[in-house]
């Protein structure tokens, strides 16, 4: 059976506005489409519906028909079909659009309901917004303002609950703030399949907790902090560090694997404070792994490179690049270029240009780990496919640079340009490193930077803009969140200058120019530019690479080619 191209569209009426939505659309989502806000706490588009907060109450009605004849009953006053309103309010989150459904959210009854629900939610709430991390992004705060009565009638003693429960290594719980929406419980159970959280006791004593001896320690635990509508769950890392309204949000990509989860990086005055997931229904839904949220710590790592070095001594970028040019020119055709699966598409393309100018062989190091079947794939390089697309490499990267090692031994390679790869870790021996001249462009000190003749500090993914191609061949962009440290230069600028000093044609090392040239030289990238690339990315044609044995297994929104093939049979 071939599924219909268009979902079944039906018309619903929300506060008098008609809209066509696919049949079954959640009432909250349908209302969103016509600009009507239905407040909610427990509902989450990616989790099961439980309907336990009651904040989303709406009035619903259906067009009246005569029970016997099934003919529409008309309202003589309006000349339209009469609407039978259900006298009691219903929860919006559990209402699905059906033909002719009428919804009212602006009646006195609904106002009253919302005020009542808000009042009950605040009965035992500690009202400690001034010291609460969630302030500024708290649904309880927002909806108290929007839909609450504005003053409290509660004079009784509030009950006390644990204020500081360490649920797991990264998540702290303040039980007094919990509004018992159960989103965190459902996330763990339904998405991560790690059913560790639950409510114990009853009524206003209900307390979120783990079973004694168990902990919320899976690698997705911080998503509970994101979806907690209040300040009950907080990140032990971000807690008390910064008010969210001071933070600047920049769209970025999680570089920990080829999944390329979409992220938002939150920074202030050049300092990054946290990373959270950015919704992309084609890639990571609304989630990301905990490990990816810590990557920004590399920005200020003690081994960060900040000084340009020539033979171990500080120098200027100018001098270093000229010396590098001299080394490359003198080497003739005995240069090897080790690209990195962590570089951006644009960097890959300039690296290819450099390699072509020099007649250099190109290499790349793979990073294979175990995929978690969720949002971390087996390929821990975020952009191997980008290197394939722009033609920097023709085959998949290898774990060790054995071929390069052999070429060094025979003297076929005398100079190695490394774009941030530790050659020693990639299998070259100290003797091999000593035998060649090394030009290193990278962000952090390692064994190779110690052995290198020229070291040029460059930028991390947080300090520059560019694109990456994830496992689905989805081209996704990341933007500069914070300025790079003094002493570090943008990779593209350095590569462009290297191309010139190595004797190639001048190119401008900036995104618009690189994209202008990519669009004309790479068939798959015609008509694309960084500026116009959508935030959710763009799927590229993967067929030219279909025969490559990519290592990724199944993850969210990704089926390895082999499995899809067998499934078709």
């Amino acid at each position, binding site marked *: 059976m071939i599924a219909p191209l268009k979902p079944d569209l039906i018309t619903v009426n929300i506060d008098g506005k008609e809209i066509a939505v696919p049949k079954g659309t959640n009432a909250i989502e349908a209302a969103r489409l016509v600009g009507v806000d239905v407040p909610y706490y427990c509902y989450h588009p990616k989790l099961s519906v439980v309907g336990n907060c009651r904040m989303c109450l709406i009035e619903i009605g259906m067009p009246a028909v005569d029970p016997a004849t099934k003919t529409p009953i008309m309202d003589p006053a309006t000349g339209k079909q009469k609407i039978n309103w259900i006298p009691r309010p219903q929860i919006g989150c559990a209402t699905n659009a059906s033909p002719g459904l009428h919804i009212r959210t602006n009646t006195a009854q609904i106002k009253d309901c919302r005020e009542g629900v808000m009042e009950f939610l605040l009965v035992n709430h500690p009202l400690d917004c001034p010291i609460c991390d969630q302030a500024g992004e708290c649904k309880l705060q927002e909806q108290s303002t929007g839909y609450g009565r504005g003053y409290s009638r509660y004079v009784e003693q509030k009950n006390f609950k644990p204020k500081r429960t360490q649920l797991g290594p990264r998540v702290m719980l303040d039980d007094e703030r919990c509004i018992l929406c159960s989103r965190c419980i459902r996330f763990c159970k339904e998405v991560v399949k790690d059913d*560790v959280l639950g409510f114990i*006791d009853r009524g206003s004593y209900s307390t979120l907790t783990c079973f004694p001896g168990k902990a919320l320690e899976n690698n997705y635990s911080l998503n509970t902090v994101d979806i907690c509508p209040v300040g009950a769950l907080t990140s032990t890392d971000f807690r008390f560090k910064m008010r969210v309204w001071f933070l600047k949000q920049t769209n970025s990509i999680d570089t920990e694997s080829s999944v390329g989860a979409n992220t938002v990086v939150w920074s202030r005055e050049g300092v990054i404070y946290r990373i959270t997931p950015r919704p992309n229904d084609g890639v990571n839904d609304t989630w990301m792994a905990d490990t990816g949220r810590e990557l920004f710590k590399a920005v200020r790592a003690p081994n960060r490179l900040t000084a340009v070095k020539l033979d171990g001594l500080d120098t200027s970028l100018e001098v270093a690049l000229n010396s590098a040019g001299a080394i490359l020119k003198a080497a003739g055709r005995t240069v090897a270029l080790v690209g990195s699966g962590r570089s951006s598409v644009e960097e890959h393309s300039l690296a290819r240009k450099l390699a072509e100018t020099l007649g250099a062989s190109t290499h790349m190091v793979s990073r294979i780990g175990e995929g978690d079947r969720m949002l971390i794939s087996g390929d821990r390089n975020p952009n191997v496919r980008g290197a394939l697309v722009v033609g920097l490499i023709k085959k998949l990267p290898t774990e060790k640079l054995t071929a390069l090692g052999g070429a060094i031994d025979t003297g076929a390679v005398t100079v190695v340009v490394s774009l941030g790869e530790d050659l020693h870790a990639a299998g070259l021996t100290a003797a091999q490193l000593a035998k060649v001249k090394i030009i290193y462009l990278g962000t952090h000190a390692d064994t190779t930077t110690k052995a290198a003749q020229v070291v040029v500090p460059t930028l991390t993914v947080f300090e520059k803009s560019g694109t990456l191609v994830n496992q689905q061949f989805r081209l996704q962009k990341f933007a500069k969140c914070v300025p790079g440290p003094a002493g570090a230069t943008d990779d593209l600028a350095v590569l462009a200058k290297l191309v010139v000093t190595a004797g190639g044609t001048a190119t401008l090392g900036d995104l618009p120019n690189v994209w202008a040239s990519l669009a004309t030289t790479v068939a798959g990238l015609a008509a694309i530019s960084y500026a116009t690339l959508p935030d959710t990315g763009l799927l590229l044609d993967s067929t030219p690479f279909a025969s490559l044995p990519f290592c990724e297994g199944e993850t969210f929104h990704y089926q390895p080619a082999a499995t899809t093939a067998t499934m078709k049979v």
Partner: protein
Amino acid sequence: MSAAISSSMNLKPATLLRIDEVITHYPVKRSATLPLLHLIQEDVGYISEEAITWVATKLELQPINVYEVVTFYPMFRQKPIGRRHIKVCRTLSCALLGGYKTCEAFEHAFNTHRGEISPDGEVTIEFVECLASCGTAPVVLIDDDLHENVDVAKAKKLSDQIKSEASQRR
């Protein structure tokens, strides 16, 4: 593994048989949570963390799922109690007719406080909600036996009875 846990919990063979049989009554195993907890409490007297884990394994659940049930119902005990369980009603009719005094009389007789095991290990007294015998208030439930119109004097008599039975046993 579950067998090892049950042996350290010391469930009687009859209880184990009953548990396996009860599970077959339900279309999904999870539904057997309550009956299993009742059987274990009847046998061992309370529901330990170990018992919760055991039930979870038995019913293919996570321990937190069973823990939620155990804490939801106040009649499930997570600590051992005395040899006899004295429940004194504290709800309206009984309270009006002296239930508080009755409870205090039991506490005094066994030198203990509600919710604790008496020093001699004989009783645990609890002050509970309506026992559904409001017409004969104040009422007291000792294990499975209902005692009606329990004023202070009758509370003393019942306490003495328990104590004498205890000394006969020794």
